[in-house]
């Protein structure tokens, strides 16, 4: 009797697995750009300087870096009393590859992002309409790609869970 029962359980097991796979594939998080219109830079522009004053013999050392402090204030009212994951997204843009790293004061996570990618800065419940932090950014870009001042755009986005 026992030998007959075991085969009867297998279809149900596979069926359950199939349901799980289907459920997982339809549970994509919705991503929304967050209103960051309250964000302010504490300096008008980012002064980019050579990372090392002198170049290398091969000429490979052409990195320029610049730091700035930005008071981030994002409006998370639409997600109030829910949970979410907030990312800093640095889109791919001219003049080429850019890296941004930042140190937070604790509200957000410190991190680093390369252009064309995003990095998690917060995960958890949204308990207030606005989230604020002061981030000290360092931008890095290849000096051979730039000639003059240029804009770098980034934004915050929410993945709703």
């Amino acid at each position, binding site marked *: 009797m026992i030998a007959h029962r075991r085969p009867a359980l297998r279809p149900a097991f596979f069926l359950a697995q199939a349901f799980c796979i289907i459920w997982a594939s339809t549970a994509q998080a919705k991503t*929304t*750009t*967050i*209103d*960051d*219109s309250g*964000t302010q*830079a504490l300096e*008008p*522009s*980012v*002064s*980019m*300087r*050579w990372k*090392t*004053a*002198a*170049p*290398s*013999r*091969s*000429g490979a*050392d*052409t990195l*320029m870096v*610049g730091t*700035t402090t*930005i008071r981030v204030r994002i*409006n998370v*009212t*639409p997600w109030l009393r829910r949970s979410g994951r907030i990312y800093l997204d640095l889109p791919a843009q001219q003049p080429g590859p850019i890296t941004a790293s930042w140190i937070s004061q604790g509200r957000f996570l410190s991190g680093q992002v390369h252009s064309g990618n995003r990095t998690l800065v917060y995960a958890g419940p949204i308990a207030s309409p606005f989230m604020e932090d002061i981030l000290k*950014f360092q*931008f890095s*870009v290849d*000096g*051979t*790609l*730039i*000639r*003059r*001042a*240029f*804009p*770098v*755009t*980034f*934004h915050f986005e929410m993945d709703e869970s």
Partner: protein
Amino acid sequence: MIGAVLIGVVSTAASAYTATLTPTSPLMVYLQVGVGSFTNNYLTGGQPGNNTAINTVSATVASAAVGNGTAQPMTTDSTATQSYWDGYTYCSVPGQLYIGGFYRTTGAATAAAQVTATVPAALTDAAGDTIPFSKIRWTSSGNGDSGAEPFPAGGFVNGGVQNVGSMSSNTWNESCWTFSYLNNSVPPAGTFTGVVRYTLSAP
């Protein structure tokens, strides 16, 4: 209806933040002939500085050898032996004079920067006697070096501005010069001097 309007406002306010990145002091030049100044080696974050020292290269020819056609090695009072790039002992003193530098610029590679020497017509002594500057030549090398020298061997012109080397953008360039006096003429006895000024011109 009110709820829908509020949601609409939040949605349209969504934005991206833009920071303006501005190259500051993107052009930098450094030329060192003889002793120079760096806060530390390049590999440890050194910063270049100004050094107003003027080094001397000299030779004393024994009276019995004057004008015999045997080139006389010249020595320098420069103490610069190590490259400020990595601290490597690149030149040997007193027989060699260090020459090196770089120029930094943003954007794609540009034409090479040129190093020129402004040379008087002749070395002179107190009595007004002269030795043409073309009597001085140099070879170029460096300890453990291989390949072409950025500041190649040559000889001075008799007055004028001459090119003595070049630097590609954003690269470190250095050589060690060994000077010699040709000693193929017989000038009056005396101490003959002259000053050569080296200039780096970047595009």
